[in-house]
């Protein structure tokens, strides 16, 4: 009996190998002989096989860093850049949560650290770039520190700006370090880890991962195969900070922005598409159906890339519309969000190219142009004549129009 089972379960795998050998590349709709669950729930012998606690920890850490800047700003207190550095590296017990302090996880070593781009150097990546990006985020801590304490922001002077009920800290060039950090890290850490690391076949199929998954050899002391776990880790960087069952459901970072893009009918069923692809891919891994897994990877990479692109265009246009208000200061928050999302475009992964939709050089050129006015964002006349061009450039690259992105309808 056992013998038979083995032969049967190994048959589809063998069939795949035969397919991968053949020169004939006609595509055919796969007939899935396994079920895709309606929620991201996977079990083995009655116990969950899902674990992405490390991703949840990092999401909460970034959240705490954002809150640290915001809360200090709210009371005109000094933002401690050393504390932010400690939070970035998780040293010296910087978090209120003991669980985070003792998690062994940190953000900085997973920033610009994906296998495809920063180990195998696909997409123009290098260790020098990694080092520069990490230093850039550290510089945002310094900028937040310099802007804090209560001095009012003005052209060329870092300080605070009372934006309705919020107090926002602006660097001398008008950029808001808090937003550059949060949106930039969504790209440099979370996006990079999702699409260039955990959804990379170089990682999923590394070493004996595929054989072990096929034979359901579990990780030592765990209820999952290595490949199952890697897939969950990609999932966790999107959904790991959510609490959808709370009275007021909360969604953090990418999950939240997926919802915001999804709310715009111009982008169809983005949220459902991404969730379905994650569930299908995970079920495919359980069923040893690697062709279906790989098809889902392509879907997720393509759909995830749309999120920062659409939001970047949205915030650029929102910022432009606010340039006339309060000498432009009203626009800086949106423009800073846009700045961070534009940074994120460098970490997208265009399926089949092992490269981002927009290169590092292209992204840097856009960011440079955005801040090239006199005293950066303070030059509202300069921005007024440059923003549309930048928005159009981004929208065109990702296959949508500025009009589609700028209004959520």
């Amino acid at each position, binding site marked *: 009996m056992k013998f038979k089972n083995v032969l049967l379960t190994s048959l589809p795998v063998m069939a795949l190998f035969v397919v991968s050998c053949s020169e004939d590349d006609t595509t055919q709709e796969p007939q899935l002989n396994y079920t895709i669950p309606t929620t991201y729930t996977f079990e083995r012998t009655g116990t969950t096989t899902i674990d992405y606690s490390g991703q949840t920890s990092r999401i909460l850490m970034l959240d705490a860093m954002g809150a640290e800047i915001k809360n200090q700003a709210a009371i005109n207190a000094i933002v401690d850049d050393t504390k932010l550095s400690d939070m970035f590296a998780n040293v010296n017990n910087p978090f209120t949560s003991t669980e985070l302090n003792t998690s062994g996880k940190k953000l900085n070593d997973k920033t610009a650290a994906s296998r495809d781009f920063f*180990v195998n150097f696909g997409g123009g990546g290098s*260790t*020098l770039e990694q*080092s520069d990006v990490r230093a850039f985020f550290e510089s945002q801590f310094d900028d937040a520190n310099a802007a804090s304490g209560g001095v009012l922001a003005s052209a060329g002077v870092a300080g605070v700006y009372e934006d309705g009920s919020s107090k926002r800290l602006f660097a001398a060039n008008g950029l808001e370090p808090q937003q550059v950090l949060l949106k930039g890290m969504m790209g440099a850490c979370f996006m990079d880890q999702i699409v260039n690391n955990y959804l990379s076949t170089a990682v999923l199929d590394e070493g004996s991962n595929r054989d072990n998954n096929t034979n359901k050899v579990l990780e030592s002391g765990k209820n999952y195969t290595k490949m199952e776990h890697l897939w969950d*880790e990609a999932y966790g960087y999107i959904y790991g900070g959510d609490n959808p069952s709370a009275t007021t459901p909360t969604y953090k970072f990418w999950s939240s922005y997926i919802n915001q893009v999804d709310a715009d009918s111009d982008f169809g069923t983005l949220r459902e598409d991404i969730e379905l692809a994650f569930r299908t891919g995970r079920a495919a891994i359980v069923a040893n159906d690697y062709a279906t897994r790989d098809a889902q990877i392509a879907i997720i990479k393509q759909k995830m890339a749309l999120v920062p692109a659409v939001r970047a265009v949205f915030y650029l246009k929102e910022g432009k519309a606010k340039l006339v208000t309060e000498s432009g200061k009203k626009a800086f928050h949106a423009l800073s969000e846009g700045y961070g999302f534009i940074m994120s475009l460098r970490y997208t992964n265009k399926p089949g190219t092992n490269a981002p939709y927009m290169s590092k050089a292209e992204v840097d050129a856009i960011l440079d142009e955005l801040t090239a006015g006199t005293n950066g964002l303070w030059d509202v006349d300069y921005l007024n004549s440059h923003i549309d061009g930048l928005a159009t450039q981004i929208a065109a690259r990702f296959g949508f129009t500025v009009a589609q992105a700028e209004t959520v309808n």
Partner: protein
Amino acid sequence: MKKILLLIGFTALFAACSSSDNGSDSSGDGYDRTALLTNWADNIIIPSFENYQTKVNTLQTEIAAFTAAPTETDLQEVRTAWVEAYKAFQYVSIYEIGKAEEVNFVSCTNIYPTNTTGIEANIASGTYNFSLISQFDKQGFPALDYMINGLGADDAAIVAFYTSNGNATNYKQYLTDLAARLKTNADAIVNDWNGSYRSTFIGSNGNSVSSSVNRMVNIFVKNYEKNVRAGKVGIPAGIFSSGTTYPNKVEGYYKNDISKVLLNEAVKASQDFFNGKHFNAAETGPGLKAYLEYLNVVKSGQPLSTIINNQFTTIFNANALLNDSFSQQIFTDNSKMIAAYDQLQWNVVYFKADMMPALNITVDYVDADGD
């Protein structure tokens, strides 16, 4: 049972995938693995170890002369012999297979930074067993570095440890024992290769995971990745510590001006092995370069072997921009260290992502960087 059946299935399919399975040779791709292994053993590995053995013998002789009557002149002679042996070591660090694997050759010869507290404790007690794992970081070239370069601020102060120090006898004994330990291992490895191991190594000419070619390629790439790229450049430059640099973790820290020399020797040794180049001769024979060319492995329209050798040239150019002292380089401009690391990493990518799949050799070690 399950696994065996599946393995058979996989093997059969992989074989069916390969482009040329016309030979009756042991590797399945027509390349003569016996000739490859013979060239590696006779023209590269054994001569490299014999050269290393010679240099270790000289070092031992110089240390014997120094300990007999310690002078600053003799200390300098020891230093010269130490540098020469350390350079020769870079050519054999690659071959941790057979006896070298059995004795943990690399670990007990070149763990750095060395454990100075442990060394001083050993000297104070006068009893230690170098074959224990817990003693690996208190011996080898880094320990010798401390003993001949790091004990005092200048040569007179160092020599004083071997003359006027209250424990001078033990310092001399420790220095002597360090050299003896290097010699014991060098002799054992050379004897094993010249004894039965050569034929064992060459005879394992198949393409299983435990065959000599598969294992040697893994060991070669792993040495390049872990000991050369990471150990000599990446770790001190802070690549694995989120930017926190470690100027004290450079190779040859106490001598301090030989890190670059040792790195270049190690890169050269790796390139020579890749090219199948005979040790200390211009001639080349079967090697990874020839193997890739036999299989016509091309990447982006260029032979992979050419890409890899071009990359070695780029590596040497990046290394040339570094200070002889990596500690100094890290202080003054660490970005040059990172740039050198990047160039070294490119060949890790070519080896692991391009060369090994082309040779149908699975990477048998995995980076432990998950969470």
